[in-house]
């Protein structure tokens, strides 16, 4: 069991690909078919490019506040790749590439950050919960989704994401403990990108690593190199097995790094060291994964360049479409308050309609 072999209390960190993209130990390489490997890489790359573009649009005043994922693509894409289609994804707010892998359209994801609720409305069969802005509260939802799956006898799991900052929150602990005591099939992934806005990981917790927090709750836990897609995949696969076999939740800490700002409203140069950034740029998950795939002859530099161009065009085209969506109609901001609009709200809607009409004149 990986969680035994890589005991976070013994400061072990699970890695399959080293920082350069070479295999550390053949025995650790998870079985992943070529198609999945390529899909993982392509989705991470699309995520990276769509992310870079989103930042650009924001700087051009075309996109609203946006939370970049740069550097964390492996930490949240590989876990989703290790799931079955019917498994649930419970995101925080920095998992765009994982959402793409699960089947969300880039158009929706852009629409969300463009300021339209419709961007959180996914096809039901995708089993993606909406982005959760209140930190860590979604861990309890994950516990509940997982409990329901177990209750109904459905062989499916929930994977919930949270940040290093979020792991200090009451709800992180409450959700993990709930899932543990009910032995619900929940996998909690802490994307430890080492910053909660300007607050560094050291100021967040005295725990030697965040994975070890699970052990107090009786939850198998593991610290994984979050920039290593193969290790993240393997850890989640094992956790999934445990979960669907009735053995409860797993906590995975994905050690990664936020290469960009917290959001577009943030200025990381105030609090972040340049050397740190350089150190982590060398450990970029996309560069590592690409090297692995090229060595495996699944990808060539030329193909990669072609993909990059394709994704740039795709991002641009998608965003232009989103920009054309314009403002949200009045009915839309009223209609989802209740299943059926109460009489009083119907009157408020009518009043607002009249106001808007008279102002348009």
């Amino acid at each position, binding site marked *: 069991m990986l969680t035994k072999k890589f005991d976070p209390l013994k400061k072990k960190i699970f890695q399959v690909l080293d920082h350069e993209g070479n295999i550390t130990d053949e025995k650790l390489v998870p079985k992943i078919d070529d198609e999945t490997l390529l899909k993982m890489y392509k989705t991470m790359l699309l995520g990276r490019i769509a992310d870079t573009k989103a930042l650009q649009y924001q700087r051009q005043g075309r996109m609203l506040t946006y939370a970049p994922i740069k550097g964390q693509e492996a930490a949240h894409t590989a876990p989703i790749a290790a799931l079955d289609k019917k498994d649930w994804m419970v995101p925080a707010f920095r998992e765009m590439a994982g959402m793409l892998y699960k089947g969300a359209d880039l158009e929706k994801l852009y629409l969300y950050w463009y300021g339209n609720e419709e961007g959180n409305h996914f096809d039901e069969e995708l089993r993606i919960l909406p982005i959760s802005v209140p930190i860590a509260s979604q861990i309890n939802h994950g516990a509940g989704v997982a409990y329901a799956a177990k209750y109904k006898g459905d062989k499916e799991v929930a994977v919930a994401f949270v940040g290093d900052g979020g792991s200090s929150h009451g709800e992180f602990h409450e959700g993990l403990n709930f899932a543990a005591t009910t032995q619900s099939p929940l996998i909690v992934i802490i994307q430890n990108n080492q910053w909660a806005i300007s607050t560094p990981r050291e*100021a967040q917790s005295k725990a030697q690593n965040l994975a070890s927090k699970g052990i107090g709750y009786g939850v198998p836990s593991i610290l994984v190199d979050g920039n290593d897609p193969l290790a993240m995949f393997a850890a989640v696969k094992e956790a999934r097995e445990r979960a669907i076999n009735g053995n409860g939740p797993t906590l995975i800490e994905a050690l990664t790094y936020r290469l960009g700002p917290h959001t577009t409203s943030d200025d990381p140069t105030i609090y972040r060291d340049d050397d740190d950034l350089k150190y982590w740029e060398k450990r970029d998950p996309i560069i590592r994964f690409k090297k692995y795939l090229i060595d495996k002859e699944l990808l060539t530099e030329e193909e990669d360049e072609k993909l990059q161009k394709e994704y740039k065009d795709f991002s641009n085209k998608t965003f232009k479409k989103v920009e054309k969506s314009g403002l*949200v109609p009045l009915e839309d901001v009223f209609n989802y308050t209740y299943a059926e609009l109460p009489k009083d709200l119907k009157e408020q809607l009518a009043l607002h309609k009249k106001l808007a009409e008279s102002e348009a004149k």
Partner: protein
Amino acid sequence: MAVQTVLSAINQTLFEQMKKDDSVVVFGEDVGFEGGVFRATKGLQQEFGKDRSFDSPLAESAIIGSAIGMAVNGLKPVVEIQFSGFMFPGYNQIVAHAARYRNRTRGLYNVPMVIRMPYGGGIRALEHHSESLETLFAHIPGLKVVIPSTPYDAKGLLTSAIQDPDPVIFMEPKRIYRAFKQELPDKEFKVPIGKAKTLKKGEDITVVAWGALVRETEKAIKGLEDEGIDVELIDLRTIQPYDKEAIANSVKKTGRLLVVHEAVKSFGPGAEIISMINEKAFLYLEAPPTRLTGPDITVPLPKGEHHFIISPERIRAKIKEVMAF
């Protein structure tokens, strides 16, 4: 005297009060090193050290709950909740404890603390960044709820709040954090909690507002006098305990009342103020007291937020409607 914004006035006040009183401590998410995401606490850690100004772990319940303990044991915590929409994990501590310690211990322990938080819409923000939740605090006995609308009041009210023996919720209209400038004395001064301010005297209708909507109402009433409508504008400043006399006396003079607030309509502060007027000034009324508020919906994301926002045009139209009754 120096020109200040609401934000810089808050920063100056924190410096002043920390200098004056060793027991004042300031903490919260990103509050220490960075000085808060809006920089309201900028420079405090550098000046006063990490014991007095620090980054807390990301946990509102811990921020507010531990502040209660500190207050009980002789400190004066002034904590920041990054956005008012994120106070909910700490709301339990506010409601179940901060508001009740004095009563529970028959006055033995009290909780002299300030909980600061930016609030309100109009800044094209993400979910949970735009709500006006003053009702949720004002409804709880034991809490004081303050909302400044100028740099002067921000300083004067925050000074009062820090020196107040009870827990004070200090809500900051972030839409006007930097938008409004005023010359302020560099020395300490106080604005009393619980006192409204009449910003403009008038004879025909009383308009009560607070926070960013004071600024919008000022825009709305410009030129109305030329149209024969003389508005009396009251900035409420304290939501609880609020200045009933100021409003009632004004309505007794004008005979008309409009309350303008960003908070959603039902069970909001407008409802409270109007029923107070029915109790205190009913016989003086020439039109039904009324309110202009956000609709009873979840505040929309930016592409729909314009449907929620209360514009000067809407305020003006509403004033005319009341006048035409």
